């Protein structure tokens, strides 16, 4: 027999006999979340979800609700929470505009494989399809950007739908799911018996790794002269920290990361050769077209990584370790596809490969590094005195002051590329960014979620002046919850990445990219967030130290070079080997 907590005795319609536990649908939502181990949700109330909020009132000791200032903020916060904890992020919103405001975050979570459960209120079932007040077909709208979604119109279906939602969000390749619950279902009654979902018959989240594929992969690796590892988000999602490190170290293979794979191997690891893609490092891109065996682990050959696919690693045999079979051969044809969780497949391959070193091959990456240092990095990290502060030198100082131990949450644009290039990530799962969707406005709310998931770690949000103003209202969430977020605004008074493209590819015609910004310190003051603004290099180091060591939230704005470009760069349509250093 289910025992009812004291605090909700009044609310619960418990009929305490014959094991029947009748409660309202709204309470069933909350109890289902508790049964899934949820103790924190992000959301925003409104008409159609009010019953659930009413039920939450009775369970405040078990579920903490963070009121964001916009539903989009709730989704990004849930994503930030999920990304650093590996747990499912939960957000909740009302019907109509509340639900549509979730869509950007859901799309972001879908393309970046982030486990998230979104619960939306919906108009009463008899009003469905009638253009009722705040009615929108959120199941239809969210279908292309959810891993799964469902509409619930009866209270009795609520526990089952939520159980399935959590199972699907977290298992296999994770993703966002949405459960839309009509208002009458929230008010209805259900005999509440929660059963966790452990399988869905049409869904195989963990395909069994085939041993023939392991052997074929190991054979290629054992005979390779210039093997090369590309690692992505799958290593982090697969929780394969040790398995991946062991594989890399046993084989001695140079390894490069996608921006979603960053922090799966420490930045300063001797076999970590750097960043792939459009603004990645010189060697990792250039040498993609020189390796003989390419080992892609938990990555999906995004176009920002590959450049022109017809001239991408065509000389190499490709081994693709990937959980999602639909990614195999989607962009780059695999000679050996190892479908399955990389935590398992890496372990098996590690057993089957010989120990190795590839000093000569590794030296090629070092030589490229030297060239990149001379042409790009030295100037970026230590600009000459007559130049304005660069983003790179700020990140470098932040990295030193935080000893590479902070969780870095980035927004989208130039600062994102610079932060990932120059921060010395030492901690597993310490990079949170919007990779696939490139959602400006992601960082501030995502940082809030990341901080709630790991209060012990410092969270630094690195944001441009453009992206900051897309979700600036979440300063209110920081203010109300009193959490400790460090906000670094790299202000170039431009939408920098777009301006860079206009500079390089549109004859410097700066169409609508210049920003006249408010005084961010005045805004911070309104939210009681301490702040500082640096315009001169001589004040930078001390300001960064104070920023990092401050107790409580802090906003540091640094005025950086207005027209600085991020290099290296692979122009759109070019091959990885055509990467430009200037």
């Amino acid at each position, binding site marked *: 027999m289910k025992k009812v907590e004291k605090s909700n005795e009044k609310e619960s319609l418990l009929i305490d006999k014959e094991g029947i536990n009748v409660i309202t649908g709204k309470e069933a939502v909350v109890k289902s979340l508790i049964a899934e181990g949820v103790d924190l949700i992000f959301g925003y109330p409104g008409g159609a979800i009010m019953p659930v909020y009413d039920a939450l009132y009775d369970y405040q000791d078990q579920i903490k609700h963070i009121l964001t200032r916009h539903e989009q903020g709730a989704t990004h916060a849930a994503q930030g929470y999920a990304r650093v904890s590996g747990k499912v992020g939960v957000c909740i919103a009302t019907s109509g505009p509340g639900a549509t405001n979730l869509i950007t975050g859901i799309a972001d979570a879908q393309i970046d494989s982030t486990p998230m459960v979104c619960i939306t209120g919906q108009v009463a079932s008899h009003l469905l399809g009638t253009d009722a007040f705040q009615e929108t077909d959120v199941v*239809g709208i969210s279908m292309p950007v959810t891993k*799964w979604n469902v509409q619930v119109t009866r209270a009795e279906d609520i526990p089952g739908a939520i159980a399935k939602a959590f199972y699907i969000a977290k298992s296999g390749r994770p993703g966002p799911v949405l459960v839309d619950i009509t208002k009458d279902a929230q008010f209805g009654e259900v005999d509440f018996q929660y059963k966790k979902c452990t*399988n869905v018959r049409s*869904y195989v989240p963990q395909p*069994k790794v085939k041993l023939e594929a392991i052997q074929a992969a190991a054979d290629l690796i054992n005979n390779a002269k210039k093997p090369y590892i590309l690692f992505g988000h799958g290593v982090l999602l697969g929780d394969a920290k040790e398995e991946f490190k062991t594989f890399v170290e046993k084989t001695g293979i140079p390894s490069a990361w996608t921006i979603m794979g960053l922090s799966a191997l420490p930045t300063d690891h001797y076999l970590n050769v750097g960043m792939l893609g459009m603004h990645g490092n010189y060697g990792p891109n250039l040498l993609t077209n020189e390796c003989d065996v390419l080992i892609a682990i938990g990555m999906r050959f995004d176009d920002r990584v590959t450049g022109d696919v017809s001239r991408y690693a065509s000389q190499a045999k490709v081994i693709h370790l990937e959980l999602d079979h639909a990614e195999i051969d989607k962009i780059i044809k695999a000679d050996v596809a190892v479908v399955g969780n990389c935590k398992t497949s890496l372990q098996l391959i590690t057993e089957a490969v010989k120990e190795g070193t590839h000093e000569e091959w590794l030296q090629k990456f070092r030589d490229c590094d030297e060239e990149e240092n001379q042409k790009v990095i030295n100037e970026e990290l230590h600009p000459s005195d007559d130049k304005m502060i660069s983003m790179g030198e700020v990140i470098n100082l932040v990295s030193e002051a935080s000893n590479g131990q902070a969780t870095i949450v980035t927004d989208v644009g130039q600062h994102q590329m610079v932060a990932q290039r120059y921060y010395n990530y030492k901690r597993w799962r310490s990079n949170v960014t919007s990779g696939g969707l490139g959602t400006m406005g992601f960082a501030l709310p995502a940082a809030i979620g990341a901080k709630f998931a790991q209060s012990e770690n410092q969270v630094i949000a690195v944001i441009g002046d453009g992206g900051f103003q897309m979700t600036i209202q979440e300063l209110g969430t920081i203010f109300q919850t009193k959490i400790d977020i460090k906000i670094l605004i790299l202000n170039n008074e431009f939408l920098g990445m777009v301006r860079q493209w206009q500079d390089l590819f549109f004859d410097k015609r700066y169409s609508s990219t210049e920003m006249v910004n408010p005084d961010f310190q005045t805004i911070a003051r309104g939210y009681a967030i301490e702040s500082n603004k640096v315009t001169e290099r001589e004040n930078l180091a001390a300001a960064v130290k104070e920023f990092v060591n401050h107790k409580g939230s802090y906003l540091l704005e640094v005025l950086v070079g207005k027209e600085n470009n991020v290099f290296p760069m692979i122009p759109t349509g070019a091959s990885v080997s055509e990467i430009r250093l200037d």
Partner: protein
Amino acid sequence: MEKKEFTISVFTEDQIGLLNRVSIIFTRRHINIESITASESEVKGVHRYTIVVNDAEDLVIKVVAQLDKQVEIVKSFYHETSEIVYQEIALYKLATSLIAAGGEAEKIVRKHNARFLSFDTEFTVIEKTGHKEETQRLFDELEPYGILEFVRSGRVAITKPMKEFAAYLAEIEIASAN
């Protein structure tokens, strides 16, 4: 890659909105669905969509993989036309006077082995099953006499390879439970 006709069979759970999820996958890749038919399959509770497309095989392979990965899609297959036995049905509404006169129109209907489905004093409905070319040929021949209404179904297809869907389902059920 050369465009060809492919028949895609999608076996799904019985779930509201799933057709939308299926069609989105085609829409995203800008693939035109030539025809689509849905019905319950030989396995109770499992529905089968038969979708005909005209596109490059490598694209069709990717679409089938995307279909396959949807949570409530049990399994998807694609086949070339030579690997399936398929059929379509077409209905033609003609003025009864045209048939009653015992003229050319009647001869055409007989020649095509079409079936009289319904008579009325004013109109007659004729049914013809066959491949699209066959139902189209009848249409083309009747058209000069005046067709009041015409409708053709989507394709239904049975595959020639002998492995039964139930066997796949059993494999997937085992794999999904692991």
